[in-house]
């Protein structure tokens, strides 16, 4: 995630924070072991994207992200690759949220995390 080119969800830039996001790619494949003991891979899909986010932000940001989660529908996520934005259709899953201790007096600061998983 590049500060000048933040990730966009449904065309809205999400707030910048230090290292909030981890990108991982997955290969969808059927792997069988042959009679000779070798792997035989039948690849269905290469590079399925998952973005894992960890934030500590005030309540209004938490509510914004939770709105994406509770909406339940797919999200259009744009990620800058250094030269242009790539667009992905993703879903938000694994929502976790925790009120930061001692921050109750400031209307709440929350640690929250979620995953964006490519469809």
């Amino acid at each position, binding site marked *: 995630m590049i500060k000048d080119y933040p990730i966009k969800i449904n065309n809205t830039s999400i707030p910048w924070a230090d290292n909030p996001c981890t990108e991982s790619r997955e290969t969808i494949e059927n792997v069988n072991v042959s*009679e000779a003991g070798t792997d035989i891979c*039948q690849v269905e899909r290469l590079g399925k994207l998952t973005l894992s986010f960890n934030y500590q932000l005030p309540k209004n940001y938490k509510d914004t992200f939770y709105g994406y989660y509770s909406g339940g529908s797919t999200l259009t996520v744009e990620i800058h690759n250094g030269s242009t934005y790539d667009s992905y259709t993703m879903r938000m899953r694994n929502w976790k949220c925790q009120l930061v201790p001692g921050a109750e007096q400031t209307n709440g600061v929350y640690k929250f995390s979620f995953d964006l998983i490519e469809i």
Partner: protein
Amino acid sequence: MYSISNNFKTAIKSPIIKYKLRGTIGSVAFDEDDVLKNSLSITNQCSGNDDVAIGSVYVGELNMTLLMDINKYTVFGQEISLEVGVKLANSTYEYIPMGIFTVVEADRTGSGLVIKAYDNMSKLDKSFSEQITGTLYEMADFACTSCGVELANANFNTFVNHSHNFSLYPDSDIETFRDLLYWVAQTSGCYVTANRLGKIEFRDYNMTVVDTLNPSHRFKGGKFADYETWYTGISVVNMDEQTTSYYGLPQDDGLTYNLGSNPLLQYGNKQVYRENVLSAISSFVYVPFNVTLVGNPAYDLGDVLSFPDGLGDSSKKFCITNYTWIYNSSVAISGGGKNPKVLSVRSKTDKEITALAKNKSEKDVIQYYSFTNAAEITVGDGNTETIIDFRYTAVKRTVAVFLAEILCDVETTVDGINYNDGVGRFYYYLNSLYIDREPKETWQDGEHIKHILYYLVIEPGVLNHLEIKLKMTGGSATIPLGGIKACVYGQNLVASDTWNGFMDLSDNAIPFILPNYIFKNNLSDDVETE
């Protein structure tokens, strides 16, 4: 095996394989994105699970779940065509057709539109009740044309019986055109399947290997039989006579294929036709197997494979008679077949008896075996002679009654002096085992009539041998030619009006004392026939 390029062959055997899919359902196109994972499969076979069959006319079946939106109530009866592509080294895809199918079931579920479709073989399920005459090819072409499908074969010149003319009569027990193809294929020594282009294709079994699959190409868990399967005999039901005929090769050590009541093999030069079928079905030797491979879409029914090394054996042939192909997953292939070494322990005569046991008319009908002595029998004083000898079998477990009337002239006098009465003891032996029943009667000098009776429990398919022996003491008995009238009768017995092939030979030896030492060695004897 469908004709594919060498690049395809290389790609499908690489450790990493990628596929694509494209097809149409009606006029709607779909691809792999529209199909639920692991839901697309095609199953087909050309034999049952336990044997290599000729004449089979199995319908191939496609199943898949479509995720795309298709208008409701428009799917049933639509035609599906399917192509699968394999990614080659140059990153292009080589597509091959997988068949033409017609939707027979469509259900909308939470997972998507669940579809079952049959290949064009199902189009031959149309009523047939005609009398036709022609060559086997003409009959097959007639059936296909009548059902609106195309026959893939240009001729049947490579199949047996292709040059003969055959006739089918309305009473031939054929209900559909698929039934007709069944008998035509059986008479040709072939099986029938709908090929990838939707045409009906007759194929015969052969021994030409189309692909070699090393252990690295086979998924772990394969299974190979420890025997080969082959045929050396056929049996055919003769519809007119309601009997069964058996035909075997000179070296008859393989399986027997039952052709049933094939209506094309009932008339004309049927001996030749049947022996031609025997030559076709005895032309291959396979090893049964079950193996799962990568989802190679190019394999076909009847493909002969080589499985060297590992659990396989490069010197043997393995024929695909059954497969289930799953897109992006696997193709499970198998070849069936029984073990002749287990089944052929029966002799050729036993097989003929087994064929005889299949006679339809004898079920639940009282049948009998009769016996009349064909020569005079004399049982001397103190001697024992076999007087009645039966062999019989049954199609079901049954209880039969044995009855006999024996006319005998008993001689208890010596030089005109009657010293005492003679005693006749009857001994029963079933399959050479003594039955603990000894009816006996004391006879005065003169002619007598003796009636004996016994109940026999008969197991199906077992050839039983019943012997009745008479031992005389105190006199001798002479039974004239035809003096014995005996029978075994009951339901489910198998009758035969022909010689059963058995000859019983016996030799009488004068009793002698064996020295003790002789038991240390094997006893042997020689028997010669002229």
